[in-house]
């Protein structure tokens, strides 16, 4: 799994609430049998017209905005369990997603792929959007070890929560399967004891 420690980057702001996984990656693109290549269809129907021409008003088509951090409105990733949503975001070049609220399954999927979901307060999220509105190059500093996110320009900083086990997985690039496989004997004794 991809490691994550520290990141300073401009952001791509998407100030919409309840962004569901059907918007992140529409179902018709789920027919692939590998994990790669979903990035080109990230936010497909918001990003492209029916004739595949880019919609200029969509933020990912605006060259003013770039960066490895996606910032979105609350309840990000609701809907389907498709891990393709996390793969698509990562494949499009993002390493972290910030929102004031994440849907559970999306959050778990992101963590299992080394894509860091960062839940901030509504107020801090508004501050991020405000700073990007004022200056599209406004950067954020994400520090996983210290669990903080900072708006570089204003110095405003907030802490975020992360399960300590998942944190160590991200920092070291381990995944859950490595962890559980090490407990195989315990699993077998559990089965026998039932």
């Amino acid at each position, binding site marked *: 799994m991809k490691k994550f420690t520290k990141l300073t980057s401009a952001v791509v702001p998407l*100030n*919409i*609430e*309840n962004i*569901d996984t*059907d*918007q992140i990656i*529409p*179902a*018709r693109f*789920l*027919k*692939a*049998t*590998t*994990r790669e290549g979903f990035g080109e269809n990230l936010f497909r*129907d918001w990003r492209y017209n*029916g004739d595949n021409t880019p919609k200029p008003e969509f933020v990912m088509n605006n060259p003013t905005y770039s960066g490895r951090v996606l910032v979105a*409105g*609350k*309840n990000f990733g*609701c*809907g*389907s*369990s*498709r*891990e*393709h949503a*996390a793969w698509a975001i990562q494949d499009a070049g993002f390493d972290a997603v910030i929102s004031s*609220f994440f*849907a*559970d*399954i999306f959050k*778990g*999927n992101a963590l*299992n*792929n080394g894509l860091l979901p960062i839940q901030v307060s*509504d107020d801090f999220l*508004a501050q991020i959007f405000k700073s990007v509105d004022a200056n599209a190059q406004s950067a954020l500093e994400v520090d996983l070890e210290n669990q903080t996110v900072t708006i570089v320009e204003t110095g405003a900083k907030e802490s975020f929560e992360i*399960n*300590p*086990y998942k944190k160590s997985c991200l920092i070291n690039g381990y*995944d*859950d*399967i490595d*962890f*559980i*496989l090490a*407990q*195989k004997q*315990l*699993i077998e004794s*559990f*089965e026998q004891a039932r």
Partner: protein
Amino acid sequence: MSKTLVEKIWDAHVVKSEEGFPDILYIDTHLIHEVTSPQAFDGLRKRGLPVFRPKQTVATADHNVPTLNQLLPIKEELSRYQVDMLTKNCAEFGVELYGLGHPFQGIVHVIGPELGITLPGKTMVCGDSHTSTHGAFGAIAFGIGTSQVEQVFATQCLLQSKPKTMKIEVNGELGKGVGAKDIILYIIAQISAAGGTGYFIEYAGSAIESLSMEARMTICNMSIEMGARGGLIAPDQITFDYIKGREFAPAGEEWDKALAYWKTLYSDADAKFDSVLTFNAADIAPMITYGTNPGMGMGIQEHIPATAAQPETEKVSYKKALDYMGFDDDAALIGKPIDYVFIGSCTNSRIEDLREVANFVKDKHKAENVTVWIVPGSKQVEQQAKNEGLDKIFEAAGFQLREPGCSACLGMNEDKIPAGKYCVSTSNRNFEGRQGQNARTLLASPLTAAAAAVTGKITDVREMLEKA
């Protein structure tokens, strides 16, 4: 110590619990389908691992399959490849597959219960968010991502933090023309599309207890639409009667043993929930959604809430949703012409749903402007419908009875609603583009969908029931 139902089942499945780590939770049954499994099988190959407990794994093809001419090769190349890949993977790893052409094939959340695979007290997972459906039997059932599918393949376990618990009580009697789908759409409209996030929900109360198993499945199915990982209902005589005699249900001595255990599966009287909500069944009208998340629902006679009345931070998203739907603030939906009716999906494609629709449309005909698709949840449902002559009723009404699959719920196959068209759908999601690019979905019960099919517009089914 007193425990909730969720805690009882959870604690019985914890292989290891350690401070600072998620629990290692044992999974009794793993359901898989063609869309979210190929990358997980690939992962096993890369690690050189087998499926640890193949006999606890059951596969079907549902998301991507055509609903016409299922015995012919799938026309769409990528879909065919994905379904073929499932067949190949199941053969290689020794997993039982109920694929196309098998009498048990169907939507994964329909076949589990009807085959007696879904049982009280089990832990069940599937790479599909509507796995919560199985909670209707008093099981802990939830949707997982593909990395977790691989985890369960490899270890029959998942790393999971114990969820918070919520109890939702619905008491009293439902009005005429109001069913399980209306109950759940009502609850979601009350608490929002994120109101259950982080929780496992136990549904209780007299209105829930009086429901059939299939209606209970409709309720639990949509738990995820308020963000909850799962929803469940304590098993009772209705549950036991439903299970008895099914293909893989315990029998003989095994049945007696299982039944004795199942009877212990309820929340203790003084068990503590992290949150408790109570609703009155009499307050619930036939429901319909007007927006692009399932929380944007209202009683069918109501008017669409105004953008101005929304919280400041939500106004932009709310307006975007209404614009997508082509609806105005304060508009009524009654009388609004529609183009398609879809009766199907893991929410409402079981035999009782089909019976209810058939009973309503008998001696009626669909409106000329409407296309109606009925997609049964499984081969067994399809066969049962034919045995009961429902197919003849649908045919006479101009409703097209198709073959089983997820179909227009998510439009992965060719069953798509065209751009700009309105579809009254018994499925579970009204997201933008869910049923086809720029398609507009209005979620409703099978009865409300059938009424719209007959009149060609959004209709309060209660008025038609009164006339009858």
